[in-house]
C-alpha cells in the first residue's frame, strides 16, 4: 500500500499530478454533462447552471482551476524529463518552478474572481 510517511521528495509531485488529473477528469465529466445539457433546452440547462453560482462552488472552481494549472505545468515538466536528460537532472528546480507558476496562477485567479464572488456577478 501507499507509504504516506516515506520521506522521499519525488513522490509528492507524482501524487499531486495523479490527484489533480483525477480531479480534473471528474470535473470535465460533470462539465460535459452540464454544458451538453443544452440539448435538453434552456430550463434544464439553466437549472444546472445555477449551481455554478453558489459561492462554495465558485471557490471550488478556483481550486480546480489551480489544479488544472498545476497539472498542465507539471505535465510539461514530465515531458521535459522524458525527452531530455537535462530535465531529470533539474527535476527539483523545475518542480519549484511549477509550484511558483501555479501559485502565480492562483493569485491571478483570486484577484480576478474574488471581487466577482463578493459582488455576486
Amino acid at each position, binding site marked *: 500500500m501507499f507509504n504516506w510517511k516515506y520521506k522521499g521528495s*519525488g513522490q509528492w509531485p507524482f501524487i499531486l499530478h495523479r490527484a489533480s488529473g483525477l480531479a480534473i477528469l471528474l470535473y470535465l465529466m460533470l462539465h460535459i454533462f452540464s454544458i451538453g445539457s443544452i440539448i435538453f433546452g434552456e430550463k434544464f440547462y439553466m437549472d444546472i447552471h445555477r449551481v455554478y453560482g453558489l459561492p462554495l462552488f465558485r471557490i471550488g472552481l478556483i481550486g480546480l482551476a489551480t489544479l488544472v494549472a498545476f497539472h498542465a505545468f507539471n505535465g510539461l515538466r514530465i515531458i521535459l*524529463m522524458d525527452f531530455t536528460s537535462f530535465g*531529470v537532472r533539474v527535476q527539483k528546480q523545475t518542480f519549484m518552478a511549477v509550484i511558483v507558476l501555479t501559485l502565480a496562477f492562483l493569485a491571478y485567479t483570486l484577484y480576478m474572481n474574488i471581487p466577482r464572488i463578493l459582488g455576486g456577478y
Partner: protein
Amino acid sequence: MTQAPTANPSVAPVTVPAVQTMNLNVKIMRFDPEKDKKGRWVDYHIQAAPNDRVVDVLNEIKWNLEPSLVFRRSCQHGICGSDAMLINGRNRLACKTLVRDVAKAGGTITIEPIRGLPVERDLLVNMEPFFDSYKAIMPYFIHEDPFPAKEMYQSEADAEKMAHSSNCILCACCTTSCPIFWVNGSYLGPAAIVQAHRFIFDSRDQATQQRLGIMNQNTGVWRCRTAYNCTEACPREIPITQLIEEVKRAVMFGQA
C-alpha cells in the same frame, strides 16, 4: 636502525578527544510471524557514538539486548546490498548511514523493513519477488556469434555507457521506495530496469531487441511515473531515473 624520534614540528600533537557517546532511542518495527498479526514498535535505549553506523547500533542491540532481533547484513561497508531498510522514513543501507546523520543526542531513530515486499520477520523481508523481476529482464550477457580468440573490443566510450548501471548491488532500496511498486507489485521496478539498461547499452550484447521488448510491456518502463524516489534512495548513487528515461527513449526510437 632506531633513531631518536623526529617529531614533525608542522603538525601539532594530536590530543585524543574522549569518545563522545550519546543516548539514543532506537524504535524498531518488530514482527514475529508466530505471535504478531502486524508489526509493533519496540523501543531500545542504547549508547552510541555519532560516528557509529546504524548497523553497529543494530548489532549492539542484537548482541547485547535482544538476540532475537532479525535483520540481514554482511559486508558492513555498502557493497553486498544486504541491509536495505527504512531508516527515519527513507530507504538506506544501515551500514552506510551514520548515527549522526539521522539523530541528535537523546534523539530517536526509527527503523522499519523496506516496503512493498512481504515481511518475514522483524526487518527481514522476502526478496524473491524482487529477484523474480530481476530474472524477468534476462539479466545475462547474450552473444550468439563465435567469439574472437582473445577479448572482444569495445571502445572506452562504449564501456563508459555501462558505468552507472553496472554499479548496482541489487539492494532493493530503489524498487522499494518507488510509489508505483508499493501499490503495484507487477511493475518490474527500477532495479530491474537498471539491470536491463546495463545490457541494452552494452555494445557487445546481441539481445537488445528482446530486452527492449520486455521493457515495452506494461510491466516495464512505461509504468515509471518519474517519481524520482528511487534515485534519491540509491546508495550507489546511480542516476536511476535518468537511466530509466534513457531506456524509454531507446524503446521509443527502437535503437540503443
